[in-house]
């Protein structure tokens, strides 16, 4: 049995027939070939698969794509516009927050969800917002600095 889903990913509308047990991360990586979303455990513990669903960070390995029916999904591929990096992407580069990079998409999207609802977060707010994503390279210091560098930035699209 297949079910029909209808959702928006990075501003693009998709209508598909999927197996009901398909997870959102499987759909993104295998059906849409958006491989910027990673998967590190499949059980919601590492956070590497974090994407934004209607602006909220979710573990896409735990969410069925059927449950994203009618939703707006943002993945890391949806952040840069016409080749111009999102300020968070640029800040991660500038502050040296990227090492192996496997958690970077999830960190950046988690940080985006924070900044979208709180333009001026403090260090504790940032730590709380990012604590669901594990980074074994231990880049936490520079990741927090990357987000802090944008705190208070009133520009659009942060």
């Amino acid at each position, binding site marked *: 049995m297949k079910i029909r889903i209808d959702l928006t990913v990075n501003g693009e509308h998709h209508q598909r027939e999927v197996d009901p047990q398909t997870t959102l991360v499987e759909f993104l990586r295998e059906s849409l070939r958006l*491989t910027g979303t990673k998967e590190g455990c499949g*059980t919601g513990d590492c956070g590497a698969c974090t994407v934004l669903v209607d602006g909220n960070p979710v573990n896409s390995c735990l969410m069925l794509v059927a449950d994203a029916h009618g939703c707006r999904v943002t993945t*890391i591929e949806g952040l840069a516009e016409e080749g111009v*990096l999102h300020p968070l992407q640029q800040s*991660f580069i500038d502050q*040296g927050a990227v090492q192996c990079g*496997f958690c970077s998409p999830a960190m950046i999207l988690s940080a985006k969800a924070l900044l979208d609802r709180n333009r001026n977060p403090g260090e504790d707010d*940032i730590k709380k917002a990012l604590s669901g994503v594990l980074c*074994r390279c231990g880049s*936490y210091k520079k990741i927090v600095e990357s987000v802090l560098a944008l705190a208070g930035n009133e520009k659009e699209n942060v």
Partner: protein
Amino acid sequence: MSEMKTHSVGSRIPRVDAKDKVTGHAIYGFDVDLPGMLYGATLRSPLPHAKIVEIETSGAKKAPGVRAVAEGRDFPFTFGTAIKDQPFLAVDRVRYVGEPVVAVAAETEAAAMDALQKIRVKYEELPAVFDPREALKDESPLVHPHLERYPHSGHPIVPGTNICVLRTYKVGDMERGFAEADEIFEDEFSAHAVSHATIEPHVAVAQYLPATNHYTIWSSTDRPYLLSRELAVALGIPADHIRYIVPYVGGAFGGKNTLVAEAIAVALARFTKGRPVKVVFSREEELTATQVRVGAFMKLKTGVKRDGTLIARSADIVWDSGAYISNSNGVAIRGAYTIFGPYRIPNVELVSRLVYTNKEISGSYRGYGTTQVTWACESQMDVIAHRLGIDPLELRLKNAYAEGDRYINGQVLHGVGLKKTIEKAAQEIGWGKRGQPSSPTTRRGKGMAVILKGTLTPTNSCCFIKVNQEANATVICTTPETGGGQKTVLSQIAADAIGLPLDSVVVTSPDTSITPYNDAVGSSRTTFHMGNAVVKAGQQVRQKILDLAGRTLKADPRRLNLFEGRIYEEGVGERITLKALLSRTFGPAIDLLGEGFYTPADSPLLAADPNLEGWDARMSSIFWMFATHAAEVEVDTETGVVKIVKVAAAHDVGQAINPVTCEQQIEGAVVMGLSNTLFEELKMEGGRILNDSLADYKLATVSDMPRIVPILVEAQHKEGPFGAKGVGEPAAGATGPAIANAIFDAVGVRIKDLPITAEKVWAALKRKEGRGD
């Protein structure tokens, strides 16, 4: 030839791989997807030690979507460079819970997993042994009853026992040394197994082409050449019949340098008629069936003069190899030496034994043994200091290696910035001043630890550099980007060696059919070894460019200079851009290829005691890394909970090619070090790991991060590229003992067995209260 100027080197340059990674465009081994690709899954042993009586796979073979089922007798090869002890798939015996027994390749991952359910394996359970100290006893079951029959690399094994490495070493006169000591300290310490826990799991895609007997392997590994050689030896085929392609690696830390996912993928690919097979490990497999840091039980006996002078130390280490040796031999041989610390001790004696047990395989882990032995060495230094009433800082400064001191094999040490790291870390942490606790029930304390780490010596690196008609350069080398900033650092070195701007340089990813030999990313060797090869190749191509410019511009090439892509003539100024020069001249008559090769094999810096032979003669390191971590902690006296307030981490890096990548290594290693020390532990029952998820195997999160201050000390190395050494490994080893020593300073209890849990601290506080001291 005109002198190289540094422009990129030493600058805080953003990483060249960062843009790929923040946009999601970086392709990792995890992302590799090929036409016709099948998916592999593995049935693993549920028992720690058993004979395989029968394997029934007919149900799985008929299952929907299944294209191949492989068991040990179908693919009866073994591998292992130290000892050829490990089957791809268990043949007649399983030796740990999680050992691969049957593998299935199917059209989808789900079909492969479903087919595993249809396999029946009958076992006859055997007695098992889990503690390496038990495994040393005569009555212990033997994990490998016929150890002597395996081919091995020539290191001492002990047939008829579970000892797969026995390494002993002695300098001086132990009896006299201890007799001359005013105080003798005897302590036992243990360092536990921890998981590398890279966020990208182990992954390999293997394709076998029967017509040519060639394998192509896409893998997340840090040593493609060594693994292709290991596979070739195992399979009995020429090494160039195995092609390794390495995309971005999502973290390695020593955990991706043996045949892990490859072993399954290669075995399956043999039976899929040319279709590639992808094997991605689940997190459960990552934690239970890859490899872990080698657990160690360490006895230290140290003789000291009343003034704190170290005079003799004997060390006895029992290492837990797990079921197979993998690359733990290097830990038990080379890693063990650093238990003597970066200290002048005239009389030393080592007995190091690596012992098989029926547990997950151990292997290299960031630091290659030094994190474990530094735990013992630096904890005992603190014990000594407190008992003698000497400031731990002063005790270390008194005994610490300085430039020109001799290592335990007689090698004259060069590039020794150790004392400066001690002083700078102490200064940053506010040594000697007690911090203000945040509540009436907590106490603050400070502690420090030093570390030295060598690099595997000698090892080789080669590279090519080609410059194209647009005046851009490609560094062609087999250096995987594992997250350590390898591409960035090599780009910077190439840019300055040639005389190009940084954005004109790219570094390839490994493909062993094209990129030339390199030992590995590991042993903190990339900056030094590949960096030196890149300098040579870069200088060669630079000279070719200057000669070409001389001919074209009718100038003396000796008066020409290439800097940031522009050619200058002495006394004249800028003559032409390289791009303009090449647009005029590029064509059939031009050679713009450089080649570089570096090995320290003949370096005079390696000279040691000429009387040493065999393994004893192989102890010199072409460079030595030194670091000091100083920690401030706050201990809750009611709960035993330890909070790390701050870590000051001073590292002698020789010369920072890029301060940002150095800081990344140091800051990241402090997080890893505290995570290993306070949170991580594989809980085991009857040989089975109970906490096989990241919910139960706790890693440090951003919320656990203390204030970290990285400090770079630069004691330049005369053979290093621009004076650089390495930094990646030693960083993780000093944090743990610095924390333990700070806990002692705060509340007077000493934890000798890792990890430092709140329960252990609390119990020690209760015992101390009970004693009334």
